[in-house]
């Protein structure tokens, strides 16, 4: 199959952006039906999601502890023979619910490409070097204030086959659990100022610009540590059904 060019994808992205802006219908969550991301075409529901009140089990979430997670798993730069190649980074932030309450002692999982944009994955065909000192997967638990913290390597952008000359902006995949099942989130964290943002159909599938910017970390020089690592801050808000219990207060949102 012949791949389309970036300009074809760009035109589709901007047509959708214009249409949603005109309709005032930018969406805070990604459009699951977003044809510029070609592999979404056959993999999204076409019928409306069914509005449902959570039942008991859905108002709870699985529980994790230090029995599940070793504190060393939050440092992706250790555990191998040597130092990984690339820019060492600290990524930290706070996980809260829709009311700003901390999500405590919950599991955060990440996975990412190495500095050259290569994943340790048999399906990654990118001709960039694997790094014997970097596997790119980590876990931690949030603390009592909802804070998480990882030490890693800044991932590189990588090519993919959505279209000709398609490149993903550099990102770290995040998986999060909240205090109830309905807050479950898998997403991607990006780095500020990435020139690939406007060309990436996965990032652009979130059609509200403010909502998409919530996926972009902030460089924070106060987090940066001398002679060691640069710091990025990225806070995460997990709204879910627990929000509805106080919804009368903010029903004008």
């Amino acid at each position, binding site marked *: 199959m012949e791949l389309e060019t970036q300009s074809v994808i760009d035109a589709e992205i901007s047509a959708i952006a214009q249409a949603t802006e005109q309709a005032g219908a930018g969406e*805070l*969550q*990604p459009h*699951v039906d977003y044809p510029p*991301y070609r592999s*979404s*075409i*056959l*993999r*999204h*529901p*076409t*019928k409306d*999601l*069914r509005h*449902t009140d*959570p*039942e*008991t*089990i*859905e108002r*709870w979430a*699985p*529980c*994790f*502890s230090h029995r*599940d*997670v070793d504190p060393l798993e939050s440092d992706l730069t250790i555990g191998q023979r040597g130092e990984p190649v690339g820019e060492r980074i600290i990524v930290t932030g706070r996980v*809260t619910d*829709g009311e700003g309450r901390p999500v405590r002692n919950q599991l955060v*999982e990440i*996975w990412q490409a190495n500095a050259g944009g290569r*994943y340790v994955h048999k399906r990654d065909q990118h001709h960039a070097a694997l790094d014997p000192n970097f596997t*790119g997967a980590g*876990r931690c638990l949030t603390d009592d204030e909802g804070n998480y913290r990882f030490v890693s390597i800044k991932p590189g952008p990588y090519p993919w086959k959505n279209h000709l000359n398609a490149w993903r902006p550099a990102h770290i*995949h995040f*998986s999060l659990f909240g205090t109830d*099942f*309905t807050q*479950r989130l*898998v*997403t*991607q964290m990006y780095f*500020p100022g990435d020139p690939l943002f406007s060309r990436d159909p996965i*990032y652009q599938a*979130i059609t509200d610009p*403010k909502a*998409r*910017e919530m*996926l*972009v*970390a902030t460089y924070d020089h106060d987090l940066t540590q001398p002679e060691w690592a640069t710091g990025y801050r*990225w806070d995460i*808000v997990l*709204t*879910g*059904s627990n*929000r509805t219990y106080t*919804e009368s207060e*903010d029903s004008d949102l």
Partner: protein
Amino acid sequence: MNTTASGMSTPGQTVGPFFHYGLPYDGDRDLVTPGSPGSIRLHGTVYDGNGAPVQDSLIEIWQARPDGTVPQEPGSLRRDGWTFTGFGRASTSRDGSFYFSTLAPGATEPGAAPFFAVTVFARGLLDRLFTRAYLPEDEAALAADPLLSSLEPERRRTLVAEKDEQGYRFDIRLQGEDETVFLLFPGR
């Protein structure tokens, strides 16, 4: 950037094609040891809009114990063989199939229809999907269930697991005629 404007939640993004070394772990799909007393298999296949199996999706279940109580014990990532945590995770194989070894969930309230809460992730799927796999046995409870009773019979069918020899079969269709009913909870 990254200002948490009130009422906004962090948007989801696809799990992508490379989650296999980040999310799966040893024992992820075995909430109980396969074949142990009371164990059942919950299995199925994930299909796309062409009816082709989806070989890079990830299914999670979250459930009550057989007595209907909600587990709140850690240990899902490092199973000890004794603690039932109620959480499991299974990536699909080349043929789009997944399975869990678990216990049948009980009713969390008297008369409620027991189900597995299910989350679906996949490459190509831009945000996670929620659904439920109801147990088929208690017809009265199924008939009284608020969600099921609000659905047309052919849509309702997609949420009820099928009994088989080892447990239950629950197929997931992301798109098309028999598309699974996916859920939107208030608050997001």
